[in-house]
């Protein structure tokens, strides 16, 4: 197992910004995550976090996601997540992150979720 600093790619899909997260979500991920979040939410777009290539999330990473969630709440933006492994999905449930964001299995599931949010 090797450590891999987080790289985030932001892409537009159906009016939402998908943030493809590749690497470790720990203290080293803060800057990359924050700047991608700002880019993605420009114009109030909904944000979809793709965790399928995020191999490692630790408590500091959880705190960073909490931070994103707090910013999103303040701006009335919803966050959807997909691609979490069973293990990290459990952690999102234990920490109740799952109560404040939509957790989808895959990208199409996530997109139908954002559509629902957009149309709500």
């Amino acid at each position, binding site marked *: 197992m090797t450590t891999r600093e987080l790289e985030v790619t932001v892409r537009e899909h159906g009016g939402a910004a998908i943030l493809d997260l590749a690497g470790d979500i720990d203290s080293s991920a803060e800057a990359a995550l924050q700047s991608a979040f700002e880019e993605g939410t420009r114009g109030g777009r909904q944000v979809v976090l793709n965790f399928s290539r995020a191999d490692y999330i630790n408590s500091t990473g959880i705190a960073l996601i909490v931070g994103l969630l*707090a910013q999103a709440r303040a701006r009335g933006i919803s966050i959807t997540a997909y691609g979490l492994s069973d293990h990290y999905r459990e952690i999102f449930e234990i*920490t109740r992150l799952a*109560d404040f964001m939509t957790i989808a299995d895959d990208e199409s599931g996530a997109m139908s979720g954002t559509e629902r949010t957009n149309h709500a």
Partner: protein
Amino acid sequence: MTALTRPFRRRFLRRGRAGEAPEAEAPHAGATVEQAPVEISPNDPLLAYFQAATGAVDIDTLDLDSPALRELKAAGVKLAVPLVSQGELIGVLNLGPRLSEQDYSSDDRKLLDNLAAQAAPALRVGQLVREQEAEAATRQRFEQELEVARLIQQNFLPKELPALPGWQVAAYYRPAREVGGDFYDVIPLPDGRVAFVVGDVTDKGVPAALVMSATRSVLRASAQRLMEPGAVLERVNEHLCPDMPAKMFVTCLYGVLEPASGLLRFANAGHDLPYVKTSEGVVELRARGMPLGLMPGMEYEEKETVLEPGDSVLLHSDGVVEAHDPDREMFGFPRLKETVGDNPGGQALIDRVIADLEAFTGPDAEQEDDITMVTLERSAGGAMVAGAMNGTVLADFELPSEPGNERQAIERVERAVAQLGLAPQRLERLKTAVGEATMNAMEHGNEYRPGRPVSVRVLESAGSLRVQVTDLGGAGALAPADQPDLEAKLEGRQTPRGWGLFLIERMVDEARVTGEGGRRTVELVLHLQGGHDDDA
């Protein structure tokens, strides 16, 4: 004068005339006085003339284009009597004018010829004795130098090998008569790991011994500071390069064993590959790398393998495989590999290889090069901690408190528990708990001071798996002031952080904090039967 070839590198004394003798050195008039010798260069025609002469030679009447002859004339030599023994010119008797100022008579000459015939063999005997004495002194100097090399070499070999519960470690070193540059070392590291080294310096004797001792010292120092075998060899190479004598270099195999788990990580600087006997046959431990001391900036590939109970490793120097039989055939790698495969490890393997080698080279053969072997065998029963109270130690290691090092803890614990066959989801939970406990220990306990390591121990006993993560933060409580409340965090009433202990408690069956003597330990417990295994 110029160099004379050996039989003529004698001093040709001339007899001074009485009048020239300094008063102080002349006890009475007419005493003979030694003057500076006249030496004859090998290409001087006078040499051939003397060799062929049948008796005393008149110098005044001799006409040769010879620098030595001119010198003899200038010195006032009148008569030269060649001293010949067994056809070989070994010296010349030079005489000045007679004190009576008359010429030498034929009686004088006869007397001188007789004298020369007697003196020449006696002189020859004296010369031979002197030559033999000089040769003996040279031999003695050589032996003394060998002795010095041997002493340096032996002084730097480990006096004893560490006792590793669950492991048999044995070593063998026999220098050739002309001591080579072999060495081996076994270095206990602070976190319970042990480094094994086998190396060979090119060249022989004192130069090789000195390079060997330098290499060993740098290796020992680097082994204590650096975790990764590749990094250790890189550092040793950087240290050796500037001062390495031309055409010398060092091959070296460096491996670090984690005795509890059997994990062996290794790097190789151009040394002969070690053999490992496993249940599936004999394999070589391969890792790429250039010999040490050739050029700076080298990188050393790092590999790892896990030695299972019953596996044995042989580290060896080229003195084994390069031994020759009377027909000049080499012992070779295939024979050694076969011996490793057919025998138990440890001291028994060393004894076997030595017996095979002796049978191969023949009983009277002189050992050509140093022979070095280190064997390492994992007992078939697995490693039990003394007292067995704590059960089986699956891993026991330390990590410096540096951000990101929790990943190493996770990786090593995962490897240590691989044999338990935990359900995947349960393993993931354990990994998260180990990571969080290690981060807590590094951050809160040790304040990310690299000199304060975190130690991690993995124990299996009586149906439970325990991972103990210990820091130096004293026995204080670890629990945060508030249970994390996501609602409060999102509203900014709580820091977004503070999830570590919360996660730890939910990832394992039991988590407890204990303190003792300035050390604090978080113990993570998984019950191996029941517990959460049902949700796998």
